[in-house]
């Protein structure tokens, strides 16, 4: 139990950081995923190609590589924050937002594909009827197709979000820490395993419970919501 007295506050801080990472990445991934899905079903070929290119690139690249590229490629080589001498952003903020970027883009491709399969569940007659009464493409998508598509894919969408929450652990490859230097959950776990090698089983249990506390509610919420908002046809 002295594991808690020594590391309790650090574990809490670590999971709060992981949660922050998950909330930002999840929000951006859902928004970007909707945009990508719209691209992929749009009547404009160029948009369809762009959507497909992004999805095929990031969905088929390991997240570790995407994460690594965000820091070593974009920041270190391409200087997206400016040359190293002039960067005023703190390291913890810089790495946090790079992790959010990598996680959002990566996850958005899965969101996009889930949504696209949802769009396919909406009977063709609906879109045809909408067009017949004079709705434009964007009105059709916004008012008729997407609301129904979203409601039919709540459960698979929750799986994507759960996977994303667990994927936040990959952020350890670029060192995401709080301003006071506490790692996100997987880095904190490594730190504790290094310092307390004889308590590995307990440490493992603590961290898996921590992740389940974040992921289980997502699953339950989605199960409840998909019943409540089911499309009755």
């Amino acid at each position, binding site marked *: 139990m002295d594991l808690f007295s020594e590391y309790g506050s650090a574990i809490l801080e670590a999971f709060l950081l992981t949660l922050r990472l998950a909330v930002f990445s999840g929000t951006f991934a859902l928004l970007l995923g909707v945009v990508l899905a719209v691209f992929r079903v749009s009547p404009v070929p160029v948009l369809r190609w762009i959507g497909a290119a992004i999805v095929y690139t990031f969905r088929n690249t390991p997240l570790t590589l995407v994460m690594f590229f965000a820091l070593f490629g974009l920041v*270190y080589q391409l200087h997206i924050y400016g040359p*190293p001498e002039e960067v005023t952003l703190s*390291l913890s903020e810089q790495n946090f937002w790079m992790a959010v970027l990598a996680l959002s883009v990566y996850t958005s491709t899965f969101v996009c594909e889930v949504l696209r399969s949802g769009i396919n569940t909406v009977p063709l007659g609906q879109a045809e009827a909408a067009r017949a009464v004079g709705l434009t493409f964007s009105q059709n998508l916004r008012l008729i197709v997407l609301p129904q598509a979203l409601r039919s894919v709540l459960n698979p969408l929750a799986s994507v979000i759960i996977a994303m929450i667990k994927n936040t652990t990959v952020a350890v490859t670029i060192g995401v*820490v709080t301003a006071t230097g506490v790692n996100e959950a997987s*880095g904190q776990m490594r730190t504790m*395993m290094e310092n307390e090698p*004889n308590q590995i089983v307990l440490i493992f249990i603590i961290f898996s419970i921590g992740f389940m506390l974040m992921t289980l509610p997502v699953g339950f919420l989605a199960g409840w919501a998909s019943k409540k908002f089911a499309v009755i046809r």
Partner: protein
Amino acid sequence: MKLKKIAAIAGALALAGSLAACGGSDDTGSDAGGDKIKIGIKFDQPGLGFKEADGDYSGFDVDMAEYIAEGLGYDDDQIQFVEAVSANRETFLKDGTVDMILATYSITDERKAEVDFAGPYYVAGQDLLVKADNTDITGPDSLNGKKLCSVTGSTPAQNIKDNYSKQAQLQEFDTYSKCVTALQGGQIDAMSTDDIILAGYAEQFPGEFKIVGAPFSEENYGVGLPKGSEDRDKINDLIEKSFEDGAWEEAFNDNLGESGYQLPEPPTVDRY
């Protein structure tokens, strides 16, 4: 028809699998005979324990491991090196994956509860590596406002932030080589770990880096052994012998001689 084809493929695979298993059991058979000694080293630490592109191993820990293994009566071709990353070291010793470990393994009381140690064969100290032309970083207390890199799960960086420079910013990576890349690019100002590990990187990129030379901790590198190992006294004797016959100094000079880092005095072996 299709089913038959699948069955044939499955059969072929099973056969291949059993053949491969036969090949494997031959190897382990000779291991069990006590012919080989399996030594855990680092594979990714230049100058200490490093697996070269051609499959050879080099480094101070490797040379010391070979010296000790020879002293225990093993030939060169009976030594089998196994990669032991930091988090695996106790487990590997306990489950018999390795017979001993020389992998920048600091002797601590927590670890002593799990495994036995021979040595120390080297006393390292936490230090800082900076670019060769850097002049404003002189020690752990001159890092306020600077960016400091270390590996996740290690204590050095946190130690600096807690006890020396509270305004230091920490960058943690999963490997030291990422720190080196960031140091080369100017994204971080200093990296911290044991001086001999830093010396390995200074040796790898001659002239690019320098070690600040203000060690602020003491790490006793020991030979990790399974609890209750019978070879401990013998290995302690061998370590002392290596100090006297020059093998220890030679191992250092061969691997870290160009790093600009001076070899300290040999430590006293602790026969606890």
